[in-house]
């Protein structure tokens, strides 16, 4: 890690002093370099302690052995062997990916639509802010509460079924409303749609309105403007939102458990079960594999879109 990359201001200083090429300037340059290391130190320490160290620990523990009450140093591949040979792994990853893809799809659709409405149809900034805050109101309560509120609503004798029965639309309660993949995806979309709205809205607000006018001037229809201008220019926002949603869903364990009635597995749930059963090395191995998969997914996404301009 080059500390200079963190403090370009000092790089400028060094460039200038190196041009002067006097003995004094070299001393200054060294001092500046020391100072730049010093300035970057807190960040390095924070990252080292709270990111690198835990990850390295997880990596190491994933090779350890364990029994009912303890885990101890070893160098075994059993944990990984199980992860890669158990048919549960594949089934769980497929299930988790299914949740991820569905959740992503609905979040993008909803997120894009809401952001589009806010950015291009709401004219005044005051209303944009007001409506945006309105979107965030459900997020003032905890995730868990927002999630389990669905349970009485969707249950066999819940509000949704009662209303549908009352209206005569259905004759028997719909079983698939609750404790089903539908319920899981519904809760995910409810929980994470805002993570899509915010970055997309942010990107859309940066689109120069004159571009829309220019496209209009060039004869583009509303739909053509959407597909040729707005969607391509919103890609970084969509991508940032997608990274949020995908990483959140891939790592989730609580939503899947509650909304599937404990009947669906996700990678996160397997890890959480293993932790609960004190099988830390097995959980660590699973976590390493999950982390690799998610990093791989994010890396692929970043290959397609440059999000740096948005940060």
């Amino acid at each position, binding site marked *: 890690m080059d500390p200079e990359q963190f403090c370009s201001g000092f790089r400028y200083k060094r460039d200038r002093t190196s041009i002067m090429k006097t003995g004094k300037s070299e001393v200054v340059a060294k001092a500046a370099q020391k100072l730049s290391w010093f300035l970057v130190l807190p960040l390095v320490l924070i990252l080292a302690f709270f990111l690198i160290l835990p990850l390295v620990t997880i990596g190491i523990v994933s090779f350890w052995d364990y*029994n*009912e*009450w*303890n885990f101890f140093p070893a160098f075994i591949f059993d944990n990984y062997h*199980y992860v890669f040979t*158990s*048919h*549960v792994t594949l*089934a*769980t990853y497929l*299930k988790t990916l299914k949740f991820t893809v569905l959740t992503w799809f609905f979040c993008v659709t909803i997120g894009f639509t809401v952001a589009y409405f806010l950015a291009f149809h709401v004219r005044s900034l005051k209303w944009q802010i007001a409506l945006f805050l309105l979107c965030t109101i459900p997020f003032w309560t905890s995730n868990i509460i927002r999630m389990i509120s669905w*349970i*009485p609503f969707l*249950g*066999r*004798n*819940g509000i949704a079924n009662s209303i549908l029965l009352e209206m005569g639309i259905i004759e028997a309660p719909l*079983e698939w409303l*609750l*404790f089903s993949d539908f319920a899981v995806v519904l809760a995910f979309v409810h929980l994470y749609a805002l993570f899509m709205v915010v970055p997309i809205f942010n990107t859309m607000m940066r689109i120069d309105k004159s571009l829309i006018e220019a496209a209009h001037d060039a004869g583009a229809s509303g739909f053509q403007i959407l597909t040729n201008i707005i969607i391509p220019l919103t890609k970084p926002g969509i991508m940032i939102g997608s990274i949020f949603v995908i990483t959140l869903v891939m790592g989730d364990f609580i939503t899947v*458990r509650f909304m*599937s*009635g*404990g*009947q*669906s*597995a996700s990678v996160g*749930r*397997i890890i959480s*079960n*293993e*932790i*609960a*059963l*004190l*099988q830390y090395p097995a959980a660590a191995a699973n976590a390493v594999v999950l982390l690799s998969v998610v990093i791989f997914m994010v890396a692929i996404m970043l290959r397609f879109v440059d999000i740096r301009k948005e940060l």
Partner: protein
Amino acid sequence: MKKTENSNTEKSLSRRSFLKGTAASAGAVLGSGVVTGFPTVWAQNIKNVTLRQFGTGVSNLNEVAAKVKEDLGFTLEMTALDSDSVTQRAATQPKSFDIADIEYWICKKVWGSGNLQAMDTSKIKNYDKIVGTFKSGKLTPESVIAQGTAPHTVGFTEGANGTTFADNETGWMTLIPTIYNADTLGIRPDLIGRPIESWTELLNPEFKGKASILDISSIGIMDAAMVCEAMGEVTYGDKGNMTKEEIDKTMAIFTEAKKAGQFRAFWKSFDESVNLMASGEVVIQSMWSPAITAVRSKGIPCVYQPLKEGYRSWGGGLGLSANLSGLELEAAYEYINWYLDGWVGGFLMRQGYYSAVPETSKNYMSEDEWGFWFEGKEAKGDITNPFGDVMEKAGAVRDGGSFYDRMGAVACWNAVMDENKYMVRKWNEFIAA
């Protein structure tokens, strides 16, 4: 966290100053092994003691802590956790507790960690009165020992520093038994409308999409085994210690049922089981006794259905942290003696659990309560729990009958198997299926 550290410092200070001043008398007291009456100096010092207890919500009740303060003078801090967290804490954070209120199968898992210390039964006043289940495994001399991790198999160790379990009464206990019960299936009689007699009903296609089982592998596998055995599909050598083949067969049957949509949900916490049953999402499921009561207290009919194959039982007790010593250790012994002395027993029995020393509890229960809860007699008046809620109306009879009917019909105990690791993986596969 900080607070705990502070109180620790205070404690160790007071302990040290005490030891300096009264080393001789202390030695005398310790040597005598008499724990019934402390010299004045102990009695005053003990008020400064704080014991930290953790366990499942079942017996971690604030009423108990309040009564301890009143009767014994020292402070008991309670932490209630779910059984997975309890296991985790007992195994990995020995410094975070003084007393562990855990189940016997958890004890089997964590004893090897050395985080708990054996207890000298000669210091336990009511040791002789503890029911046979926890000593020989036999409730009555004629009883057959149930399968699984029966409490007596993990209740004793060889000596003060024992690390393995002993198969006889050695005078050193791992846990002092406090609470236990016989579990069965809970049903909604109003939604089922016919008698339920066997564990096989859990997988009866009649209840497709309306059954549930709990997702705690050590307990869930036992319910599953009860069902498979009752169906005649699997014959077990020992349900509490299955072979890999038995585990595979059991999970195969349940996986098939799961894929066919038999289960509405799996539950993990007490509240989830209550909600599933009360909302009518589920009409038959594994359940715990107080959960049945909680459903009934909402005015919803719910029966803890005795089944012909018998009960799956569980038991819990108090274990001492290996870190306990000196004054605090003595306080802990005093606490355990008090626990078996009857007040807590009555308190627990009036909620439907059983006490390890039922006869002392009788002193703290009305005749009608004793008759209803213990003897299986018809209630003469309304039966209320210690919190004043009406549990049963006059004329009711306890599901399953008397103590001896119920605890005498235990088919197996919650268990940890030799193939635990394998079982857990299979259980996870079942959940993921």
